[in-house]
């Protein structure tokens, strides 16, 4: 993949992290009843959506990643358009965060609530800010570098409080770190092609990737198929394993703290599913429980 394509992918991923974390900050405050900050955080985040709409053609489904590079190059004036938006976001986010840091009501609702001790975080294999808020030092951008990250200075933000406030701090720090990363990427981005030269996409070849999404490590498994179409595709989103820690999170809490505890994982419920198989010939549907899956696996690999 050409270097310029790697940088474009990195810039878009970091822009996505910026608007995702601002979204979370807004939603978290909505769940504790502070709608003012919900509206303000989403107001602050809107210019990033307009920026990505200008850069890629859509506010959030960028449609840029292709095998071998990216589909389109950035517009010619990307270097003029991106920095002012980043400055505005950095400035307004800093002011909003500064305003809530000493807010006793918010601290009371978020500190000491939804505690996930480091050992439990490791046992449940949580990822992303959920793990980093509990002192687990993992980040796919540093551990399994991809795209342009080997050439950028990624700061892995780890907090040791293990509660929702720590996760909030992790996300706030990552927000400002992402702004820095986009600026650095824009300075370093080389010119050149955005798509590798290759003849054809060979069918039935497998690719597996591990990317640091805003919620944690997301894994994709794809198998190419005939006719330039994917044959198999499976996503393991970070919310899938993050949600497994909810029993530990909720233990001993009051019911009023349940929504914010669950929301502190930044769950994307759309990324979760139970395993359900459909027999395409007979149409029979079967739902597997954990015991069923384990016994099936053991049968086949005894």
């Amino acid at each position, binding site marked *: 993949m050409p270097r310029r394509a790697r940088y474009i992918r990195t810039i878009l991923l970091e822009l996505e992290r910026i608007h995702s974390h601002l979204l979370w900050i807004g939603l978290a405050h909505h769940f504790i009843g502070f709608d003012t900050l919900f509206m303000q955080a989403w*107001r602050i985040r809107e210019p990033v959506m307009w920026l990505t*709409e200008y*850069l*890629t*053609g*859509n506010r959030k489904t960028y*449609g840029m990643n292709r095998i071998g590079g990216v589909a389109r190059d950035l517009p010619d004036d990307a270097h003029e358009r991106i920095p002012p938006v980043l400055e505005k976001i950095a400035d307004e986010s800093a002011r909003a965060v500064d*305003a*809530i840091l000493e807010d006793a009501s918010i601290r009371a609702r978020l500190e000491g609530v939804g505690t996930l001790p480091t050992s439990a975080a490791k046992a449940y294999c949580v990822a992303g800010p959920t793990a980093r808020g509990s002192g687990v030092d993992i980040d796919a951008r540093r551990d399994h570098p991809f795209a342009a990250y080997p050439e950028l200075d990624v700061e892995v933000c780890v907090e040791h409080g293990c509660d929702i406030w720590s996760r909030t701090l992790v996300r706030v720090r990552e927000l400002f770190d992402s702004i820095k990363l986009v600026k650095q990427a824009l300075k370093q981005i080389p010119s050149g092609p955005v798509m590798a030269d290759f003849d054809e996409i060979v069918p039935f070849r497998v690719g597996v990737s591990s990317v640091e999404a805003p919620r944690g490590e997301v894994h994709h498994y794809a198998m190419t198929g005939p006719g330039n179409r994917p044959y198999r595709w499976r996503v393991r989103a970070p919310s899938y394993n993050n949600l497994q820690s909810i029993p530990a999170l909720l233990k001993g809490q009051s019911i009023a703290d349940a929504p914010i505890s669950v929301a502190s994982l930044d769950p994307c419920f759309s990324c979760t599913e139970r395993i359900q198989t459909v027999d395409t010939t007979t149409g029979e549907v079967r739902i597997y429980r954990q015991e069923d899956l384990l016994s099936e696996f053991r049968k086949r690999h005894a």
Partner: protein
Amino acid sequence: MLKHTISELKEALVCLEAGRVTLPYPFAPHAPEGEFRGKPVLNTRKCMSCGACGNACPARLISITDEAGVRTLRFELGRCTYCGNCRDACPQEAITLSQQFELSTASTSDLEIRGEFHLQVCRRCGAPIGTLRQVGVIRERLGVVPELQIADSGFLTLCPACRRASFLDNPALAVEVTRERA
């Protein structure tokens, strides 16, 4: 307690300084900028109904059916994801993604593009070769290679199978092309 009050004042300041930001939409338009990927539009003068877009579409919403000497090209834009693959694949640059995003409709059949193009059928066996326009485009592009003498040959009105058979029937149809090796 004082820190908390100051914090609340700062929060109020953030809101007051932002002021009212509501866009006047829908009372004034709010057009997207740049290369916005809106509803696909087909330029029916350029389109030759070759089907390259159909191969590229991830949602498989582009279908081609040949019947009674007419090829029907149909886009069911209800499930379009506005990815632009069709635009990128089209050799005639006949597809553009417009800036139109107000696509709400009571019936998904309003989201259809339909084109009917006449087919060129094989003069020997009657099977469809491609649309008349496709054949015209090929004639135009190959016409610049004088050795091939395409315009006068009967190639373009024969399907590939009949073309092969014709060489055996009539060797005069074969054209010898020699290339000088440098």
